[in-house]
């Protein structure tokens, strides 16, 4: 049994959560935004996980070297089709390295035992943390060496004016776009300013590696709400939509920390800042 499953199910964990007031429930604020049902639907895909979620200590400081650790959360259903657990599928570690006029993010992603992605993403220090250049290697490991060598994708890319140039396993592709180019890792540091990125005409392209570039994305602010029982924290939820993106919420606390990136079947939760 995975640790998170165990935590979610064990009586001890429930008791501990009760005693320490850490069991989280989501409540929507009295500022409904034309919605048809109550509660923070942003948290639906991570509902079980959120009940035992403990916010990390520390603040995000884009001017410092920091390491952010995320749980990758899925969900499983029982016979009645209800969500019975939200297991942790893997982990993502993002190391921020501030440079002169830029920030570099080193990302290590591990899903299950076999799926890995490592890469570096260099962003500008503008309000969106626009992506300047990147490289990553994605692999699904196999015990058979000849198969494993076939199962690896390497990509590098860069922004040059209106051009986005990517080289995937040696093959170059050039596309043209005047929209800002962002990546998920730079957006972690832009989360504290996400409200500024919510203009209806504020469209962007996001690199969703290894799948590729998702164009015509936008943010808008969804409901505000609260997380937690006892020690509640207010959160703002920002909805990302666009082609190839199922409604994705960035759930940001009052300190500007993206606590959750809630998608559908696979979401992220900020676990530690160091």
């Amino acid at each position: 049994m995975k640790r998170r499953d165990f935590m979610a199910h064990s009586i001890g964990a429930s008791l501990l959560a009760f005693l320490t007031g850490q069991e989280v429930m989501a409540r929507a604020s009295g500022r409904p935004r034309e919605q048809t049902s109550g509660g923070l639907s942003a948290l639906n895909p991570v509902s079980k996980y959120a009940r035992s979620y403990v916010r990390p200590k520390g603040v995000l400081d884009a001017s410092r070297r920091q390491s952010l650790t995320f749980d990758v959360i899925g969900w499983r259903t029982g016979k009645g089709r209800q969500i019975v657990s939200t297991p942790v599928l893997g982990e993502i570690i993002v190391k921020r390295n501030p440079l002169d006029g830029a920030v570099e993010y080193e990302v290590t992603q591990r899903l299950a035992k076999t799926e890995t992605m490592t890469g570096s993403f260099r962003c500008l220090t503008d309000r969106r943390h626009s992506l300047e250049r990147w490289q990553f290697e994605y692999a699904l490991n196999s015990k058979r060496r000849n198969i494993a060598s076939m199962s690896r994708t390497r990509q590098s890319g860069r922004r040059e004016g209106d051009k986005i140039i990517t080289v995937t396993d040696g093959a170059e592709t050039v596309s043209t776009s005047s929209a800002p180019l962002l990546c998920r890792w730079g957006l972690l540091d832009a989360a504290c300013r996400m409200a500024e990125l919510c203009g209806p005409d504020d469209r962007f392209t996001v690199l969703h590696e290894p799948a590729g570039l998702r164009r015509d994305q936008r943010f808008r602010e969804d409901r505000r709400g609260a997380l937690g029982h006892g020690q509640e924290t207010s959160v703002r939820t920002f909805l990302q939509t666009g082609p190839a993106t199922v409604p994705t919420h960035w759930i940001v606390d009052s300190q500007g920390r993206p606590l959750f990136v809630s998608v559908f079947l696979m979401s992220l939760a900020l676990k530690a800042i160091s």
Partner: protein
Amino acid sequence: MPARSSAPNIVFVHVDQMRHDAVSALDNPHVSTPNIDRLIADGTSFLRSYSANPVCCPARASWYTGRASSEHGVIQNQRPLLESVPDLGQWMSTRGYACFYTGKWHIPNRRVDQSFTLLPGGSGHGERGDTGVASVAAGFLHNYDRRKPFFLNVGFLNPHDCCFLTFAPKNPSIKFGLCGLLRDELPPAPGSFNTETGAASREGGKWDTEKVRLYNYYYYRMVEMVDAEVGRVYDALRHSRHAQNTLFVFTSDHGEMGGHHNLFKKGQLYDASVRVPLVCVFGGRAEAGRRDSEHLVSGLDIPATILDYAGLEPMPQMTVAQSLRFLLEAKPTKWRDYVVAESNSAGGPHRAVCMKDFKAVLNRRGSASLYNLKDDPLEMRDLARDPKYAEQLGRARVFHNEYVDRITLHPKLTSFGKV
């Protein structure tokens, strides 16, 4: 008859639950599929392509055996494939092809690794697994350097993730709270959706118009997700040394009701469920940019086409399947007047006889529905009891019985013969 080393490579890419019209190149304004659009521009697309049986396992078993579900035995998900029936992997491996598989397989009683060299990749969820499947397929295409021609199979899962949406309200993973915020961007409910009664999913819950619209919004985003992955595989092929000598086939196992006739998911014999996209690209050989809305084709024709281009003899008892080669190469050929799809779901067993302008759905008791697809593409008016259409219904029964004569019914199945 072993394959020559100059025989073409085959890349067979399939997605799961993609409706025939969920493509931007086919004038659907609610979805953006730039990569499938490229396939349509580069190859020949069949606009009247029907699943052999609009459920995952039966449709897939038909792709890989070339036989109808009432022959191979997989009439429903989890029903076993008849052991004696060979599949494409076994057939082509023993005839000189190197056969590889990544992603969703889902043919009961047949282990994929006993028919193909199994590449890593895939999970029960498209959102999680399809990226890995595309990466593995792309990596394979960049790296394969053996002399043997290859047959690469790539099984994507999306937009099948939409099935999990129907778990609501017990499972609130769909964000119903967004109906208001996204109202102006949601696609309309299908024309055959009855807004007064609403829909009910099998898992329970009432789906009003707004929720059905949100469901389809999610669905189209899932189509776009898998479109991106299909594009990665296609780009990898185009940039590889195999670009010129490879047949690329793209299709889906079945469609998605998405609220059509107040239903969700698959198994139905309405076009939303049974009609699927099918595109074949073969640079310099298959005609580019042709959209064939005339010829009626079936998922059974895919293995026949693959074996034809591979220069290999058909597998045993592929009596209904026809190679699409002449159609792809725009050569004159006598083509069939009808295509049959089977289903044991939704009150089945029943069969759809799809003809040029009409579709009849027949069951074992001899009762039928009849739709005029030309005048009534949403299949709203059942004409089976209208004497004016007795001739069309009679033709459908004749075609059905001809089909039954050609297939060999599985000895132990609850199916039906002539009507």
